[in-house]
């Protein structure tokens, strides 16, 4: 999808029902939704705008973690007012969402050896990506980091699916002590890197990819406004030559070589070498 910025994925308003609520760790919630119209349409790395049931705040952008059959699931850390409200929902509750949204990971190549890097809740964006790459026969190494062992949620699930795990925690309670990018830089060079996590981690992944001489697809996070491309609030500087660049005149016509692209619309996944952040 990345690089084919205007692919029409037919997003919609979907009225879903919560089928299952699981707390994977303290403050980490997995909601499984009955959403047949989303399950088939969602591509790896896409997200939903979740409309707050109270109507008392802006909608929340959350990655689609799993999409299978008639179900999609969202996985989130409870960090503020909006995720706290979502965490109070129970089975049978209704939840309206917009989606699927954004240009996700391109898993279509025939790459044999890939690295996926996930930091914290970034794991939620990469499951569909890992599953698709494994289905295509790739060897997938998952470099997965979190603050502490308990927050390395669902690591076993990736291992069971066939990923080779490299784990890291800030406090050393599981895997290597330190940043997950420190394990990546010492590892054998992959052919392609996929990553989702906090911006400092993604910048470092971009540097490491550059050092390896390989390309990386980064799924960015930012505070969203509308989440559908209407407000230009969630942007990142991007090469104007990128296929994902929004319509903007080039420097020779009074514009610029670098433009701000919407993370919600042109992204959230961008090629690391095209970012100018």
């Amino acid at each position, binding site marked *: 999808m990345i690089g084919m910025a205007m692919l029409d994925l037919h997003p919609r308003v979907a009225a879903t029902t919560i089928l299952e609520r699981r707390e994977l760790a303290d403050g980490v919630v997995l909601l499984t939704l009955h959403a047949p119209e989303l399950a088939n349409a969602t591509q790896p790395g896409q997200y939903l705008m979740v409309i707050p049931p109270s109507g008392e705040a802006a909608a929340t952008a959350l990655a689609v973690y799993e999409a299978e059959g008639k179900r999609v699931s969202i996985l989130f850390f409870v960090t503020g007012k909006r995720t706290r409200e979502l965490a109070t929902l129970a089975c049978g509750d209704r939840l309206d969402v917009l989606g699927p949204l954004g240009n996700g990971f391109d898993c279509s190549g025939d790459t044999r050896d890939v690295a996926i890097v996930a930091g914290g809740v970034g794991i939620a964006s990469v499951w569909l990506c890992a599953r698709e790459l494994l289905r295509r026969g790739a060897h997938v190494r998952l470099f997965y980091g979190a603050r502490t062992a308990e927050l390395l949620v669902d690591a076993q699930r990736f291992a069971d699916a066939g990923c080779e795990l490299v784990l890291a925690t800030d406090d050393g309670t599981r895997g290597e002590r330190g940043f997950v990018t420190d394990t990546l830089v010492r590892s054998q060079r992959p052919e392609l890197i996929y990553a989702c996590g906090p911006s400092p981690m993604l910048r470092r992944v971009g540097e490491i990819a550059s050092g390896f001489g390989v390309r990386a697809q980064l799924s960015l996070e930012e*505070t969203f*406004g509308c989440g559908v491309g209407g407000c230009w609030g969630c942007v990142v500087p991007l090469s104007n030559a990128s296929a994902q660049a929004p319509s903007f005149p080039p420097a020779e016509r009074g514009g*610029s070589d670098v433009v701000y692209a919407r993370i919600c619309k042109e992204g959230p996944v961008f090629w690391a070498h095209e970012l100018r952040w």
Partner: protein
Amino acid sequence: MGARTAVVNPQPALAIKLGKLELAFPTLMGSGCYGSGEEFAPFADLSKIGAIVLKSVTRLPRLGNPTPRLVHTPAGMLNAIGLQNPGIEWYLERELHKYAGRPCKIVGSVAGFEIDDYAYVCERLAARDEIEAIELNVSCPNVAREGETFGCDPDLTARVVEAARATTNKTLIVKLSPNVTDIVAIARQAENSGADALAVINTVRGMAIDVETWRPRLGNINGGLSGPAIRPIAVLAVYEIAQAVSIPIVGQGGIETLADALEFFLAGATAISIGTANFTDPRIPERLVAELQAYLTRRNIASIQEIVGQAHVEIATPHQYEGDEG
């Protein structure tokens, strides 16, 4: 009863006029909040809204502000987008075709840094058939230079409106800043200079600070506050301006519910504009139209225009405190 059911009212009229601009519904989508409309088309029925006010366009391309550009705050949000746009030439050439055939009216928005910018961009934009009216953004608080100067000075406002007025006969809406000492004086100047309608209000200046990093949370340091947090400020501005001018007002600032919308009509707004609420749920504008319709039917009111300004009252006893007359 039988006799009455035979003369059941047709649906109450929600249609309104802003100058020459006729709208089927009294709802506009706020500039900068709704893209070109196409972004929201999968989630909202554009045939159930009055008009989309497009994102402001300037004479030259603008990259926009550094990031972060948004911060969620209690009952609202701060934004500092910085008028990112490709400039009028590119816009006319590459963007404007998108607006043809929309099932609602399209209002162009013009921003600038010199009086001549406004006139130039207004003329180019208003000349196009896709654009049915022009909003003059004299009040963007999020640009580093003299962005808000025009809207904060009655005389500069007058000169901008006069310059734009000279370029087009299409409806001119002037969007006013609340970040002024006397918004009523500026409203009067805009009316006297040829404005057909006023948009009241733009965002309220504000900032937020990250207490971990000790740094401003917006890349631009300051931004514009929108959402329910500013609604009482906007309602008062509409109330006071409505008593001072005779041109219609588009009320805006944190409208989410039927009650919010009614407050603005009762304060004196002929139409309302919805911005930040679209970020909560893009179905809100359509829901508001249905609820307004039901409200008028229930109260047996034939037209939305009948309730405009109905909250206006005199203070019963202006000199209620001893000594005030002194």
